[in-house]
């Protein structure tokens, strides 16, 4: 089994901790407790016959003034950028993070998650908002930490991208 580091990056309260908790323990909570520092969780996935132990780094989502500490991102094999589909401005914030991070990690696979898709009535993002991400080669997926929708798929897909990039290189 191989071990790979994956980092979740995004503005505060977009649901990074909730996504990881749902993926690792299958639990969701309505309560919000902002993350300080780093917490690492593990879960293995199997893609294309290869078992991969994902070391999932939950990074504190800061406000518009503070980007994520770059040293945390060292050695990451994949990024899950997270925005809250019910808060359009979190998309702009994740875009800023991407602009800071991707140049240092040009080959590292990344997926953008639009979380909280269970809150349909409050949804603020449409396809045209995602164009710039697609142009930058970042796939997007719509997820819900509450219902679990697309979470395993997102981690699987990211792992697939990581593996194929490694074997292609």
């Amino acid at each position, binding site marked *: 089994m191989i071990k790979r580091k994956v980092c979740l990056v995004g503005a505060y309260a977009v649901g990074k901790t909730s996504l990881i908790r749902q993926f690792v323990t299958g639990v969701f909570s309505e309560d919000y407790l902002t993350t*300080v*520092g780093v917490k690492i969780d593990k879960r293995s996935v199997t893609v294309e016959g290869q078992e991969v132990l994902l070391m999932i780094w939950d990074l*504190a989502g800061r*406000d518009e003034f503070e980007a994520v500490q770059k040293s945390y991102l060292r050695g990451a094999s994949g990024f899950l950028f997270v925005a809250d589909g019910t808060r359009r401005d979190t998309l702009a914030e994740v875009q800023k993070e991407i602009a800071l991070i991707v140049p240092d990690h040009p080959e590292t696979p990344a997926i953008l998650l639009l979380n909280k898709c269970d809150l349909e009535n409050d949804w603020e993002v449409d396809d045209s908002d995602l164009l710039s991400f697609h142009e930058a080669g970042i796939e997007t997926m719509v997820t819900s930490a509450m219902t679990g929708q697309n979470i395993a798929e997102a981690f699987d897909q990211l792992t697939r991208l990581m593996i194929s990039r490694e074997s292609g290189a």
Partner: protein
Amino acid sequence: MNRELDNSAPGDGDELASILAEGIRSIGLVVLVRNPGDGVSDESFEIVGRAPDWLGTWLGAETSMLEHSPFLEDFVNGAAREFWDGPASENVLRSGLWEESPASSDVDETSETAPRFFEASALRTASGKAVLLIEPADERLKREQAYLQSVHVLNLDRRHLQKELEKKQILLECITHDLGSPLANELKNLEQIARQLADQPQLQSAVQRAIRQTERQRSLVNSIAEVFAADMAKMRSPNADGSEAPDLVAVAAEVLSACASSAAEKSVTLCPFFTSPLPVVGDKVYLSRLIDNLLLNAIRHSPEGAAVMIHFDEKDGFAMVRVEDEGSGIDPEEVETIFDPFVQGRAGGKGQSGLGLYFCRRTAEMWGGRVEVWNRPEGGACFELWLPRFRAVI
């Protein structure tokens, strides 16, 4: 600093080293030292002094710490290693806070005493030895957590409120346009029908009833719209957008002339005592609605042929307009509740929704002012609207 740490390395037998080690232990700091040229595995790290009790439970034995803690492993073999091996530029490299899960499964996770948040620092002695400090950081985390939590929750709440207000704005437009405008048209049509039915008294009175009902509906729609609008005026903070501050005296004068016909119907005399201009904080449209509410209220409660006095004043940075009537005054029990919504006392009753005075109070308070009411000794009620004087920001 570097010298002392160098001296404190195990095996030195230096007295200072043991004092230092004891002091470090008492604050819960774990100090590990690695000799230069060792491999990268953590086995080469040696603890200085005695390890604190919690270390085994939370990070495992010093020899397997890195196996247990992926964060520490990432730091020691990543950024810290680069720091130790690289040119001596910085004195210290900090890892940032991390949360650990217990190394042994029989840990009481609710135990208050054991730390579970840590920060590591990489240092270098003068002789090039790698030093790793591990510091329990629960207290610091608690403080940072409390602060960030409150900032984030505040921002989320504010956002939520703004969204609610936008929804209200839409609702307000529905009320005024989709409900209010058709009613106004209906009223016009009914009035026209009434004129054409002048010679048919029975139908005529039915149409008059319909007119009165429609008027009541329209006034209710207007009142609801006003209360909604007042809520939103708060968020918009008047004059912040550079809009001109209204002159209380001039706005009152406009409203007075608009109310002239209502006063004349009851032979009520309006007696204004104008002063020089009094620019106030507020929005002109809402301010005239506010004064309009107070004036109509006074006229409504005036006996036939009475007078309504309007005075202006200023004091302590506030401007005031006072509306006095010669009616029966307000029930003492009502004084407390007269500005509450849907109070059907003086404010309501005669075909009124009971929202007019509520709107006045809400709006005035939103702009930093207030509305006061009392009964005049000589009879009748007296309403005072106080608003902050507007001062242009220079």
